[in-house]
């Protein structure tokens, strides 16, 4: 019922009741509470079609996904690749569903950014007088402020993200002086432990070691192993009930030298400063520029051009974006991932990002399973492990 309320809040509002057609999986999960298997990486498309006047809506999914919608009161229709390939069959079903939508005359509210040229052409060909209004901003604005249930999902995702990492570290600890863990298997351990602690699915997976970490994404294409004396950065994402955590942590294999310790401490010193600025009504551009100024003052090599964070919710990266050109203000109830990218002694990117719930007087850290103020050491030697 709750998810239906979200639909009503946006599309059944006063005199502005309208027919709607939504394609973005993140929007659909937000509106319906239904999550889908890797929708952005799938060749198959989904849609939510509905009436503003009565809040009734229909989910359109590929027939391969039949059975995934369990706790939603709306109607579910499937399409088969046999009806025109994934794209053609999808559009046919969308148009067929629009035809049965009582609010749909010649105007339609849709998330314009999600639609391709070919899809818009097909809609316009079918309805030459079609008047399209873009509802993306309305949905994005609503999505930015999280309710209690959403916050709980995000908290759980954040805790699982750290537990997944710690679980994997625990396997590697004791093996750093022997050739035991390939980077690939190490990263797989992260996925395995996130799943074991309750992640519904894992998204991005990246690990960089030592100087390779000067690049943000470092695909692993060999059997390289964990090597003592290196910073290791892991970036990954996971979802719980359709809500995401993006996790970025930097740890050290073996015993760090003074320079490594200093680089990590500098990063965390800047993070503490940034945290002191986090609260509702702070302008995002001001926040970013103050952090940048502090980095200059402290002579910390901050990669300010790489951004400082973003919202998390039914997508991994969503509004608000913590960028210096963002004139929006932080608001109570926003949940953001904030992390600062600074450089280590080999120019490797150091980051440890956390998930913050913005409050009127500050923030609450949702990712509070482990304290990352000091660099985490993957260490220890054992003959067998």
């Amino acid at each position: 019922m709750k998810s239906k309320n979200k639909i009503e809040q946006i599309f059944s509002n006063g005199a502005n009741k309208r027919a709607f057609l939504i394609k973005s999986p993140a929007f659909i999960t937000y509106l319906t509470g239904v999550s889908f298997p890797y929708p952005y990486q799938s060749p198959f498309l989904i849609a939510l079609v509905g009436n503003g006047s009565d809040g009734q809506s229909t989910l359109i999914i590929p027939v391969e996904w039949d059975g995934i919608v369990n706790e939603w009161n709306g109607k579910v229709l499937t399409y088969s690749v046999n009806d025109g390939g994934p794209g053609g069959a999808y559009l046919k079903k969308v148009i067929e569903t629009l035809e049965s939508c009582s609010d749909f005359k010649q105007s339609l509210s849709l998330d314009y950014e999600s639609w391709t040229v070919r899809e818009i052409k097909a809609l316009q060909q079918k309805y030459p007088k079609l008047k399209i209004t873009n509802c993306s901003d309305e949905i994005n604005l609503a999505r930015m402020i999280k309710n209690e249930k959403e916050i709980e999902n995000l908290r759980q995702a954040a805790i699982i993200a750290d537990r997944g990492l710690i679980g994997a570290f625990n396997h590697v600890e004791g093996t750093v002086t022997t050739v035991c863990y390939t980077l690939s298997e190490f990263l797989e351990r992260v996925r395995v432990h996130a799943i074991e602690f309750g992640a519904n699915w894992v998204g991005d997976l990246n690990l960089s070691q030592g100087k390779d970490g000067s690049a943000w994404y470092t695909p692993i294409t060999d059997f390289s192993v964990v090597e003592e004396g290196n910073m290791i950065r892991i970036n990954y994402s996971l979802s719980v009930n359709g809500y995401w955590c993006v996790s970025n942590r930097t740890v050290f294999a073996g015993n760090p030298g003074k320079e490594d310790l200093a680089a990590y401490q500098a990063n965390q010193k800047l993070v503490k400063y940034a945290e002191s600025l986090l609260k509702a009504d702070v302008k995002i551009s001001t926040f970013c520029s103050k952090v940048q100024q502090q980095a200059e003052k402290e002579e910390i090599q901050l990669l300010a051009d790489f951004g400082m964070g973003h919202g998390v919710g039914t997508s991994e990266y969503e509004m608000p974006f913590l960028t210096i050109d963002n004139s929006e203000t932080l608001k109570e109830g926003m949940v953001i991932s904030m992390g600062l990218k600074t450089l280590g002694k080999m120019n490797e990117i150091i980051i440890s990002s956390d998930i913050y719930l913005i409050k009127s007087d500050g923030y609450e850290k949702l990712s509070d399973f482990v304290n990352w103020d000091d660099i985490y050491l993957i260490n220890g030697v054992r003959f067998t492990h």
Partner: protein
Amino acid sequence: MWNQNNYSKIKSYLKKNSEVDGIIIADPAFLAYATGLNLQSLSSNQSQCVLAFFSALESCLVCPKSLVSTYVNAGWGDSVLAYSDCVAPQETAVNYLVNFIKNHLKKNSAIGVIEEALPQVVADQLNRLLPEYQMIDVSEKLMKLRQIKSTFEKENLIWAAMYTDHGIAGAIHHVARSVGKTEKFLTEDIRVHVLERGAHISGYRAVAQAVSGDNARVMWPNAPFFAVGRESNFQEGKLIRLEMCGMYNGYWSNDSRMLVKSNVISDDQEAFASSLAKLRTTALTKIKPGVRANEIFEFIRAEGLKLNLNLCVEFGFGHGIGVEPVEAPFICASDETVLEENMVIVLWLSARYPSNEEIMASKDTLLITETGSRVLGWYENWDHTYTAAFTF
């Protein structure tokens, strides 16, 4: 690092085709194809927009500063135009691209775009900022280009298929009749074994499934847990559906096998499995250059009826594979694509096992040869249904 890229293929297309003077690429799959770097997160990351432009002489890639080193490491030797993280990355990236095009392509030139994947909002901005240029849809032509695999692509697809099939075989070696095993454990075992063989680790859809009983009645059981497996133990004597999508150098595998969790196979299971194996053998005789995808579909459907198989016709019987685990052409009722030499497709035969309508499947990667097709990556003879060891 991934040093390959396909842009020579795109450039040679541009030299041969005078209808367009340049091509804009904006979607993650075509970007993976063109740059050699398959960044799956681009599909779902609103804060990063990557665009590429090719003409016969010039190329450029627009990306956020945070990705520059990644693309350079991947062998991108041409111009990289980088923008700082910002509140409107798509709009910013298009502005950078437009400036490059204005400086490198004369007015009134024709620019190819992939309308099938190009966001309308990007097209609107391009049309507004480049009124002197003509945009032409090249979706079909570029998709065709992607469908015919180069030697390098074929090698990657062969390794991906081989490691995955070998990995599945390695994982099921750990299944025994008298030893308990959960879905979650076997799912993990498959992923780990595929990686051990040499597949490259990847997130998102690079996952496995191992399901039986009621969970096997749908393709994605346990929602909202997707392909991570649950704690349920496999029952002795049951058929188990195994699946894995893996990646190698940015190219995918998409494999499915089945096994019986017993050292003995029942008569019903044997009849079902051997019918599916027979259907695969028969289907392979039809898959060759010159045959339309929908003809193959109809042929398989008819042969399946003869074998009394309850085929999952609604899924189609296969698809192309490359920088996406599922891509065109589709072996389905509506696809009239004529198969050509050097296409790589996945033959996907799935049917419902009679007693409980569990979906069991066989997925084989095929390279279309001059005269027929070649099965890639078979680790063992899957015509015989795999039965578990009694114990270990």
